[in-house]
């Protein structure tokens, strides 16, 4: 990903080498992996010149209107949408009106006022229009992509932009002083550069192993560092949703692709062994004949200084948060954008400080959101969930939650990776209501507010009815592509 972005951004003025280990090592995506992305990736694809229709074809892509969280409150599910809940009424945030109605003992279902969630529940999809006055503009979308195929697209793109691929395992890293001097490959070849980008995943071959930058471990809060994944055939394409379902020792993910489903179980290796995890995953998958299971480890935490000397770490080499919020690719993208925005010349001291500050903050904000899922979980039993409840939360998160619980204030810090609505969906979905709505929300006539809400629902229902089924939309896209060329 970074090679493609740098290559496009540098327009051939800098020489870029990428050292690719042989296939099937820890770094490269496995056959089973899928990417559940966030809407900003579409802008990234556009920037580097990856056509979305082409990606949908080559990466078995489907659309995503949000993530469905299942069982984080016993027996319930909610959608965290790529889009807004309701509309601001009289300058007052929509959720404040909902809170008021809820306090008045009305049954309120927030998803009915959210186009992305309502369409996803109906298993429908159409790309939103751009008219800012239309209800469709309250919705965004993201993509589900086959990870290997997407990686392949990026690689091709990078090579078209003359990134030099040095195939071969990295044998050693020559360090001089506090900086990297050269990469030494298995065949004895040396690669030298002004700037080294460590995209070696959690192994952090350069930033961690060679330069010794310490890793700050967050597993006390986010213990699901082990993951087992499988891909199974599924001819029927359902809702445009990623699913994250709470399980006995972690959570299971479900990403729909064209013709198949990618599933994984993220679990706490201290409580569950690999075999049992694999069996649990297979038992959960409701589809015939899954492919082989693949295992992977990635502890949540961050590198203290993701940019040290002449080495910039990106992706999980810099930091990792359990991908409950589909932040895996998103955080990598964000780091790339920050690196490009702070692209160094000279000694890079000032840029380094700023990069480390921004990336550090963003990882912490992503961490807080992931922890919030555990902190608000309401599950009946099991040692894993008892421990989660006892683990406590960072101060930054405690502050946020106390603000929401009191009067529904949504606190947004600097460098939040996800928009405000992600937090709101989590709270509302978990059935957590503020003790009281904002004072201003109590001013308008309640019947008038109800009437506006009814109109909002009707508008959303009509918009959903205009959309084709998700499967139908994807089929039409394929057909169109065939006709075009």
């Amino acid at each position: 990903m970074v090679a493609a972005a740098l290559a496009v951004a540098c327009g051939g003025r800098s020489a870029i080498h990428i050292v690719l280990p042989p296939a099937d090592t820890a770094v490269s995506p496995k056959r089973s992996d899928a990417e559940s992305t966030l809407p900003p990736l579409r802008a990234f694809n556009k920037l580097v010149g990856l056509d979305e229709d082409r990606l949908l074809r080559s990466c078995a892509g489907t659309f995503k209107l949000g993530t469905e969280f299942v069982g984080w409150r016993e027996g319930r599910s909610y959608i965290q949408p790529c889009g807004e809940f309701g509309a601001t009424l009289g300058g007052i945030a929509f959720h404040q009106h909902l809170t008021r109605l809820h306090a008045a003992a009305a049954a309120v279902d927030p998803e009915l006022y959210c186009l992305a969630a309502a369409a996803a529940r109906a298993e429908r999809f159409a790309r939103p229009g751009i008219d800012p006055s239309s209800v469709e503009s309250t919705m965004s979308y993201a993509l589900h992509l086959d990870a290997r195929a997407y990686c392949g697209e990026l690689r091709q793109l990078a090579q078209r932009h003359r990134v030099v691929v040095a195939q071969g395992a990295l044998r050693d890293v020559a360090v001089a002083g506090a900086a990297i001097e050269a990469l030494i490959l298995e065949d004895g070849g040396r690669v030298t550069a002004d700037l080294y980008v460590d995209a070696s995943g959690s192994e952090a071959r350069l930033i961690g192993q060679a330069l010794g930058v310490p890793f700050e471990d967050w597993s006390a809060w986010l213990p699901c560092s082990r993951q087992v994944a499988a891909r199974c055939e599924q001819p029927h394409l359902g809702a445009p949703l990623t699913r994250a379902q709470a399980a006995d020792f972690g959570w299971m993910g479900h990403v729909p692709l064209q013709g198949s489903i990618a599933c994984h179980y993220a679990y706490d290796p201290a409580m569950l062994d690999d075999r049992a995890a694999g069996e649990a995953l297979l038992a959960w998958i409701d589809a015939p004949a899954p492919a082989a299971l693949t295992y992977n480890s990635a502890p949540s935490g961050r590198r203290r200084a993701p940019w040290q000397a002449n080495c910039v770490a990106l992706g999980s080499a810099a930091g990792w948060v359990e991908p409950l919020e589909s932040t895996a690719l998103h955080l990598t993208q964000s780091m790339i954008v920050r690196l490009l925005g702070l692209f160094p010349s000279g000694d890079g001291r000032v840029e380094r400080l700023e990069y480390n500050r921004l990336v550090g903050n963003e990882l912490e904000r992503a961490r807080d959101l992931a922890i919030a899922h555990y902190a608000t979980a309401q599950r009946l039993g099991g040692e894993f969930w008892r421990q989660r409840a006892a683990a406590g939360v960072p101060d930054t998160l405690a502050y946020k939650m106390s603000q929401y619980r009191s009067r529904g204030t949504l606190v947004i810090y600097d460098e939040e990776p996800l928009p405000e609505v992600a937090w709101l969906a989590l709270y509302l979905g978990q059935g957590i209501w503020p003790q009281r709505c904002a004072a201003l929300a109590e001013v308008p006539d309640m019947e008038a507010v109800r009437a506006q809400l009814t109109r909002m629902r009707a508008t959303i229902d009509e918009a959903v009815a205009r959309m084709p089924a998700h499967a139908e939309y994807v089929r039409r896209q394929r057909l169109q592509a065939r006709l075009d060329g």
Partner: protein
Amino acid sequence: MAERDIREIVIVGGGTAGWMAAAALSRLRANGVTSVTLVESEEIGIVGVGEATIPPICTFNAMLGLDEREILRATQATYKLGIEFVDWGRPGEAYLHPFGAFGVDMEAIRFHQFWLKYHPLGLAAPLAEYNVTAVAAKLNRFTHPNPDPRTVLGSLKYAFHFDAALYARLLREYATARGVKRREGKIVDVRLRGEDGFIEAVVLEGGTHIPGDLFIDCSGFRGLLIEETLHAGYEDWSHWLPCDRALAVASAGVEPLTPYTRATARDAGWQWRIPLQHRMGNGYVYCSRYVSDDEAAATLLEHLEGEPLAQPRPLKFVTGRRRKVWSRNCVALGLAAGFLEPLESTGIHLIQSGIARLLSLFPDRDCNEVEIAEYNRLTDRQIEHIRDFLILHYKLTQRADAPFWRWCAGMEVPESLRRRTDLFRRCGRVVRHEDELFAEDSWIALMLGQNLTPERYDPLVDTVPRERAVTVLSRMRELVRKTAESLPAHGDFVARHGAAPGPS
């Protein structure tokens, strides 16, 4: 829950802050529980902070449902597109801090980075020529922005110059028409509740008690409630912003009517020039360590463009902020909450954003610490960002002609500001924070306007072919120029949209 609702809000002080608060809080009366009383004394003059505003004032007026034409007529207002800074970098230089954006980004690379590369090569015009707000200001032209953000005029932003005392009067009419009670009288005592130290009532001369659940301290610098009663404490920032006095005087208006404020550096501070319909507002903000009051008055009067209409009025202040602007059941607004000199016209904005925050975090009668914490956190962040922005005007001077300016150039600045200037000096990058009042373009205008030239431009600029970049730059400039030239003259626009009645 209604038994915990605030029944009575008491606003202490009837200046700009007091009546802005009264007008906005009157909206709560519709809940059937809350009422609002404002206590003011004719004996106590009002300071009338800043007669120049910044674009968010339009949001405040819209929230109240005030018609713009009515504001123009009632407050002798003119439009404002930015501030011209004269003699701040080097004597003889001037630059504009316009509202609105410079140029358009290309391939996700910031516009000013292209400018940094091509201007030294003679392939780009001065920066301001890519900003339609700036070009319109220079040409003394004005119009409303285009609602379509993709158009050139979509990036135009504006605010007002107005007579703050008249604005307060307009809001007083608005508030009293909406049921805000006005009590005339001088407060001689403040009663605290025994169990929790909350303010229970203020006592007027003659013994009348005015009880309340929530008190808004708009009493000005002294902070009658927040400081004299609750001792919230004051953080002094005069080691960064050492000006501690001002002299204000109105003078006869001059043609043409400029759609911008001017701030001119003087030997021991700076002089403002704010054009209103009926007169010119002027003032000299200075540091008493470097100039006497008499000398300051002479300097001010010497530089007026029209006849002075009165004797200069003196003000004294200590720049800084109240440590806890919301303490117990008392929220301080305006000068009671802190003071920043009006260099960037932030006085009224700080009041307005305090009111907006109070409305969104409005408490119950027990004033929960949770809302207080968030109110104070956001207030602190905001005023610190603005403080840093103001300090940089002084720090970035190259004037060696006066001891005051030599001192400013050598001062230590806050770490948060140093990080920003380091980053900009290296490669022209700008730090952004959530909810920051002054956006990237404001920092760029200031830093480039006062000659903080980056060591180099963003290396990514080199990835866009020169020919293409230069063509786009020249097209942008041409479009901006043509658009600005097509606009009506500011004076004509004001006359058409809201000329105040002349003196009768």
